[in-house]
Structure formats: C-alpha cells, structure tokens
C-alpha cells in the first residue's frame, strides 16, 4: 500500500471507523484516539496490507483497541443512550435503540455494529474479532434476542 492508497483509506473509512469506535467506547474522545491509533498502525504496516484489505485491517485494530483495551482499562459508561426510555412523550426511536445497544456487553455490541453498520458477514466478522464463524453467529443471535427483548419491553413501542 502506497501513501495514495493510505490517504484514500482515510477519506473512505475514517468516518465509519469513528462511528464504530464511538459506539464501542461510548466516548467521542476515546473514539478519536482509537481512530488516530488505528490509522497510525495502518501506516506502519502499510507495506504488509493490501489496499483491498485495509478496511478490515482498520476495523480489526479499532476493535482490539476499543473493545479489548478499553474493556480492560475501565468499565465503559455509555453516554450516547439517554437515561429515559421510550414514553409517548419521548418517541425518539434512535435514542431508544442506543439505549438498547447499551444493554449489550462490549463484544456483542461490537459484533452488532460490524454487522449492521458495515454489513460484514459472519466469517468476515470472525476474521476481524478473532472469533469463529459459529461464535459470531451465536453471539449475534444472543445480542438480537437481548435487543428485541428490550424493545418489546418498552411500552407500546411496537
């Protein structure tokens, strides 16, 4: 990968990586650090990374940093989700979904985001996270059940 390819990756994936890191870490400042360090690693390893695999490489680094490192350091306080759940006076579905996402553990949240935000398949998520395809499928289904249960529990949301 040359400097041109790297810069192309910045333009193409920095936003997506930032959104993913924001949801994983729960803090914009931490997400900023994750993006910076992920691209720093990509630049260091640019000779070994093909441009076609740069996105997966970035998310792999971001996943490790935001999930593994932050999980070990501090318990994530998820600021994106407001405390108030759905009420007829608070019909903001987005906030409800964020709150539902906050119900998940860090790994499950990352799996859901990789699936829904980036559209990765089970095997691709497995390569990024280091899990097997079966593990990814099981963890994702468990997360979906948790999310569904939360949303259904919210009065009259459905």
């Amino acid at each position: 990968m040359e400097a041109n390819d790297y810069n192309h990756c910045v333009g193409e994936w920095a936003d997506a990586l930032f959104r993913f890191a924001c949801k994983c870490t729960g803090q914009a400042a931490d997400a900023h650090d994750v993006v910076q360090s992920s691209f720093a690693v990509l630049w260091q390893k640019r000779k070994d990374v093909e441009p076609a695999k740069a996105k997966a490489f970035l998310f792999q680094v971001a996943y490790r940093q935001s999930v593994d490192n932050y999980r070990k350091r501090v318990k994530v306080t998820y600021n994106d989700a407001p405390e108030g759940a759905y009420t007829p006076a608070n019909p903001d579905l987005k906030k409800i979904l964020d709150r539902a996402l906050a119900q998940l553990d860090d790994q499950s949240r990352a799996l859901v985001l990789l699936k829904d935000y980036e559209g990765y398949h089970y095997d691709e998520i497995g390569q990024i996270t280091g899990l097997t395809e079966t593990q990814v499928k099981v963890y994702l289904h468990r997360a979906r059940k948790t999310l569904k249960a939360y949303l259904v529990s919210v009065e009259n949301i459905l």
Partner: protein
Amino acid sequence: MVTWENYEEYLMMQADGELSPAEAQELQAFVTLHPELRKEMAAYELTKFAPDTAQLYGDKQSLLKPVGDVRMFVIPKWVKYGIAAGLLLLVAVGLFRASLEKERKVQIVGVGKQDRPNRETVAAKEHQVDTNRAAAHAANPVVISATDRAGAHPKVFARVAKKSGRIMSVRNDATLEVASNNDGRAQQQQMSALTIAGPSRLPVDALELYTPALALSDAPVPNNPVQRSSAMRVLWDKVPIAKRNKKQLENAAGFVARTFRDVTSTNNDADDKGISLRIKNNQLLISVN
C-alpha cells in the same frame, strides 16, 4: 426448511442479512402461514442499526500522509554552518595531505642484477615499480621503512643481506631496494615496489636498542645495556644528518631491526664509511657516501 423449532434462528439470520434468497422466501412463506409471527419478525428487524452518517470524523487532515513518502526536514542554521565548516576543513586537510605527499615518497623496491644500484638505475626502477605496486605487495610483502627526500645531507644506504642471497638497501630518499645475490653473484630479479607507511607510523619503541649509531661508529660499545644505550645515543647525536632525517632514519633502523627480530652482531666490514649488522641470518650494511 423452516419449522417451529428453527424459525427464530431464521428470523435472526434474516435480520443479519445472512439468508439466501431461497431461504428468505421459505421464511416468508412460513410467516405467511403463521401470521402471529409477523410481530416477532418486525421486532427482530427493529434490532438492526443504521449508522448515523451525520456523525463524521473531523480531523482527517491530521491522518493524511504526504504522497511519495516525501519527508521534510528543517535543518537549523547552526547545523548548516557546522556542515559548511566541516566541508571546508576536509578540503583544507586534503590539500595539506596532498602537498605532503609531493614531499614524501615511500616505496619498497625489488631490484635485480646488482646488489648496489646507481642513481640512474634506481630512477628507472622507481618509474617501473609505480606501475607494479599491487603485484609487488603480493610478491614481496616485506614492509620496512621510509625517510624524507628533503635536506642536503650525506646519502645513507643500508643493505640487508640475507644468507639466502637477498640484499636490501635503504636510501634516505625513501627508497628501499631488494636484490638477489647468491654467493656474492648478482642475479637479475623482477623488480617490484610498494608504498608503505610514513615515518610517523613506524614503531619507535625499539630505537634505544637498535639505534643507527651502531652503523656509524667504530667506538667500543659498553656491555652494560643502559651504558650502551646512552653511549649509542651520544654517538648518534654527533652524526652530521639533519635532525628531521635522523629521526626518520631512527625509525627506519628500528623498524628493520624489529622486523628481523634480533641483532646478533655488528661488524664494520663494508668500508671506512659503512658498517654491517648481523640480524640472525641477515646482514644489514649501512654506508655513507
């Protein structure tokens, strides 16, 4: 095939987008057959998250790298001046060394036909040996001495005669010559030459033992090493040679003696201006003319 046992897995895989078109069609048929599942299917669809495309990373410029791997270095002024001064110093030293090289010619010459060549022969040989230095180094790796050409003083020759018949002579103009001589008869030998280290690089620690004063005096030499060394030094100081050349000759003699390890005897058998040193199986003849 979708059943009551696996329909939920199909619903989640539908939400994950992992169903093939055939499987999706099969699930849809099952839900159509069981409408009570529509609400559950919608709930799973609701668990899908869409990215907030308005959320952007605002510091992309800091991530970009210069194209072509160009790196900019800012060199402080004092570094520039330092580099300039260093270059000037290098040029000055180079010029100084070049001027010294003109004054100093350091060679080893392999010579033939005669055991004591005349000046014309030496000049011709010097010209020839300049073209054969590399070969000479391989053929005759003996490195001995050098003196300076400058100064009007008596010519000093030193010859080392091996029992094998090789004769070597050292002149004060920094040329050392080697000839082949079996039983006193001169034989022609291919001539070679080699540039060697200047006087400053020659060992000087053996000067007290191998001072050239031995080669220039008939005075009795004391047996006591300390007295002998002192006496030799006094005699050597009286030799009418420029001080600078005398020092270089000391170096030459010291290095010759060091090369041949040990001086076993001395004998003034050359003529009234010369003397010989027995160095194990070699004989060093030094004459002044």
